[in-house]
């Protein structure tokens, strides 16, 4: 077992009733990687992503986080492994109330001062936003950034992204992904992003896990998987046209 491995998946399967969602997955994630989990709709990407912070558990197999079983201290794990959902939840109340929501149980967040919150917002590109502003009034892209700021206040080591750009236009998508990439470098984060858009991901991710019908059908760099025509086999070729963009 290598020292820089942050996650290890061993024979991980997920069944819902008699339906097999994920089948015998074996892989590891290294610290500092930008890992893209790609696959067509229904490939099991989001189900896999939820396992990284134990929002779901495998039906069989083992997952280790920092060389220990993932479910040893789940609340601690979740503080270390933040997630940005496809449609992030925005809570009633002000931006400040949203940012401080984890302060209900996290003493460190409860003590954060206003100027630190403003810095947290600036870090995710929300510069002209007031803390007293109603969070529900933010645009879709701004809500995404606010949710990102909330997750980052926990000072996670890993950030999970669930189709982070699926509801955004191409310009906003690139802007969010540029931001995530910048945060990865500045905060030494490991990024695991689920997407069906391999064109966008190949600009940022340095490794890909390719899923097809719950099976791991590719693991490596884009270049290596291109050589094996793995994207074509996984049914992702409809995006090839955009490669030149």
């Amino acid at each position: 077992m290598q020292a820089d491995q942050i996650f290890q998946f061993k024979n991980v399967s997920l069944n819902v009733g008699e339906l097999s969602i994920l089948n015998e997955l074996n892989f590891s994630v290294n610290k500092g990687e930008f890992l893209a989990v790609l696959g067509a709709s229904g490939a099991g990407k989001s189900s896999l992503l939820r396992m990284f912070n134990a929002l779901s558990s495998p039906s069989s197999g083992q997952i280790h986080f920092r060389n220990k079983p993932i479910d040893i201290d789940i609340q601690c794990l979740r503080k270390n492994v933040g997630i940005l959902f496809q449609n992030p939840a925005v809570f009633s109340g002000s931006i400040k109330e949203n940012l401080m929501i984890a302060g209900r149980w996290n003493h460190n967040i409860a003590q954060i001062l206003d100027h630190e919150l403003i810095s947290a917002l600036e870090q995710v590109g929300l510069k002209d936003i007031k803390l007293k502003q109603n969070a529900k009034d933010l645009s879709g892209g701004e809500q995404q950034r606010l949710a990102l700021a909330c997750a980052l206040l926990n000072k996670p080591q890993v950030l999970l992204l669930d189709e982070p750009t699926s509801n955004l236009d191409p310009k906003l998508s690139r802007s969010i992904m540029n931001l995530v990439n910048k945060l990865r470098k500045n905060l030494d984060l490991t990024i695991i992003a689920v997407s069906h858009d391999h064109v966008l991901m190949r600009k940022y991710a340095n490794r890909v896990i390719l899923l097809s019908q719950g099976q791991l059908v590719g693991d490596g760099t884009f270049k290596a998987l291109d050589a094996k025509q793995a994207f074509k086999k996984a049914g992702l070729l409809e995006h090839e046209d955009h490669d030149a963009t």
Partner: protein
Amino acid sequence: MRPEFYILSWNDLLVSLVFIAFSVFLIKKWKLGLEQTLLIGTLRTFVQLTAMGYVLTWFFDQQHWAFMLSLLFIMIVIASYEGTRRQKKDIPHFFSAMFVSLLGAAILILGTILLFILDVKPWYSPYAAIPIGGMIIGNGLNSTSLTANRFLGELKHREKEIETLLALGASPKQAVYDAMKESIHAALIPNINAMMTVGLVQLPGVMTGQILAGIDPIIAVRYQIMIMYMWFTTATMANMIMLAIVYRQFFTDKLQLKRELLRDKA
């Protein structure tokens, strides 16, 4: 001047059927099609309450603590079954949650009233324990049923919020705190409204019944005040105990939301 005691004879009761006749007339005129249901309801009200009168007469003759405790236990079991039956969607272990919450409320509130407020001797006197116990259990049943339904609705509505909070490191209780707060709030509003308007807009049933039965209105009012306080405390306590048990049913031991419980069956 001593209040009069108005005795209602069977003949007097027969005259009250004029209300039903009038309702049937109105229903027919508006072609609501409810005549048969109303007539069945009229008959059932008469039969059920008359039978209950005779049963209560027998109950009131029993003077034994074991009898009283058994009776209250049976009332709680029936209320818990009824509460479970009323749920639109299955909640795991809901019968147990209802039973524990109603039992807890009954022990604490009925016990306090019998032993310390009314100072009933013996404490198991059926004249006090049966009607007050019945009110506590009935009120607890209605309130917890409303709260459980609302809680389930809140969980469905807030699924994304709850998972976000879990993902930020919240415990299941912290993640559903707002849903629990909203559910209890909604269930207690009718009780609070009743406390605000009692005596101004309406005269409550217990007080009206006591006055008609010849009790001094000042004493009837005191009873009513005690009952209002009792109702509110029953609702608050039973709801909190019930939700403390129920919310856990929606999470795995790995602090995961059981999303399948929130889905409508196909």
